[in-house]
């Protein structure tokens, strides 16, 4: 893809250190100053207020959607009769294709509680499950039966049910695959665990959301509003953002072509498992 290795480039880099100084000089230049309009502050505050109203309406709609997601996923999957260990179709796509988002008429005076805190996949993890936890510690808060290796790195992937951790069939685990949208309807979440670094990744279930209110089915606009630090993918794809409050974690969002979040997870910023 790129010509020349980084090492080559670095050698080249050292031949002309003056460019560094030139760039610093340029960025210190007075001509970069931009005059500020007199009413700029007012405009920004008004814009923020408008967005806040929109966001709160959206969030209120989101909690309704989460409930819908459970029902529709359950309905869609109920005919399959899968045991806990089989690979099933996803709740995410079902939601994203059937539920319109922006039809809420929630008034600006939003409800005081938008979500149950227990549905939050926070910057450190979910409920008693945190990033970095050893397999042993996970086993102490959830029943653990067996493990299916994901890679030769000693990474294992688990599906967590209400209070039972069980294992996916090895055949459903694709090495290096993005662990998304394959949750059985009644699963709470999935875990990627490495032998060395414990819980590497917590993959959210259909009813969960981030502290900022983003969950499966959220729009890309809601995503951008919730995470100003986020780089949205140009079309479909994965994107990550630092998890506020935990410098060692990031959120990973899978965004579909229609602009909705189809899966998300919390991951150790430095992961030794493929994801």
């Amino acid at each position: 893809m790129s010509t020349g290795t980084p090492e080559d480039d670095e050698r080249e880099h050292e031949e002309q250190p003056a460019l560094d100084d030139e760039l610093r000089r340029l960025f210190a230049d007075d001509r970069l100053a931009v005059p500020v309009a007199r009413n700029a502050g007012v405009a920004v505050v008004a814009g923020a207020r408008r967005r806040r109203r929109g966001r709160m309406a959206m969030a209120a709609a989101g909690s309704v959607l989460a409930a819908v997601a459970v029902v529709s996923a359950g309905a869609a999957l109920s005919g399959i009769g899968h045991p806990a260990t089989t690979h099933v179709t996803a709740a995410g796509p079902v939601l994203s294709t059937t539920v319109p988002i922006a039809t809420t008429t929630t008034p600006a005076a939003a409800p005081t509680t938008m979500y149950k805190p227990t549905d939050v996949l926070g910057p450190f993890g979910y409920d008693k499950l945190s990033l970095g936890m050893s397999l042993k510690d996970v086993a102490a808060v959830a029943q653990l039966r067996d493990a299916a290796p994901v890679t030769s790195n000693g990474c294992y992937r688990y599906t967590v049910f209400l209070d039972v951790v069980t294992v996916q069939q090895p055949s459903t685990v694709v090495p290096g695959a993005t662990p998304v949208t394959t949750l059985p309807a009644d699963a709470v979440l999935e875990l990627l665990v490495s032998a060395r670094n414990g819980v590497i990744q917590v993959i959210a279930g259909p009813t969960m959301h981030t502290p900022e209110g983003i969950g499966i089915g959220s729009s890309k606009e809601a995503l951008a509003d919730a995470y100003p630090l986020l780089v949205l993918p140009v079309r479909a794809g994965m994107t990550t953002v630092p998890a506020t409050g935990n410098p060692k974690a990031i959120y990973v969002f899978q965004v579909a072509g229609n602009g909705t979040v189809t899966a998300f997870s919390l991951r150790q910023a430095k992961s030794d498992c493929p994801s």
Partner: protein
Amino acid sequence: MVAALPSAARAAPLTGPDTDQWAEPTTEPGRNANGHDVLADDFGEFVRAALPGLLRYGHALAGNPHDAADLVQGVLERIGARWGTVVRRTGDPLAYARRAMANAHVSRWRRVRRENLVADIPETRAVYQPDRFADEPLWQALRALPPRQRAVIVLRYYEDLSEAEIARTLGISQGTVKSQANKAMGTLRTRLGAVLEGRGGR
């Protein structure tokens, strides 16, 4: 005042269940239980103090004052919309705003033009284009870089961030930061060389 915000934010615990967030939406957006208009007062104050610096930074990032205004307004509105949370949990809204701008610059989904932040600039870009940096080949070369390469350069030489910090800010690997920086520097050198050789040539 703005200076007091980071320390106030630092006092809030960053770990454990953040129960505040459930209570944040009150009777009216941007107004707390006492009727104090947080958006107009605290956030408004922050905006007024931060705008000149952010616009300047945006100018470096985006390459012209109009896109700078775009970036700044979009990012500040988003931050204002969740001002309480940003202050409480990031500890430094200004740094947060600057990083958010770098991301917004790279992100292609934010292209709604906003003009009203910038004073005294002609409406049409054509008028403005032969700009204050017309005699600055490095600026012109910088402006021609792809958004992500440009962001890496600005974060490195304007913000003085380390490779690791840039990686974290933009959500890319350190290896990518390195390769993007090298690519950008290579391009800049090539373009500068061409300009210096054949003055007037681009």
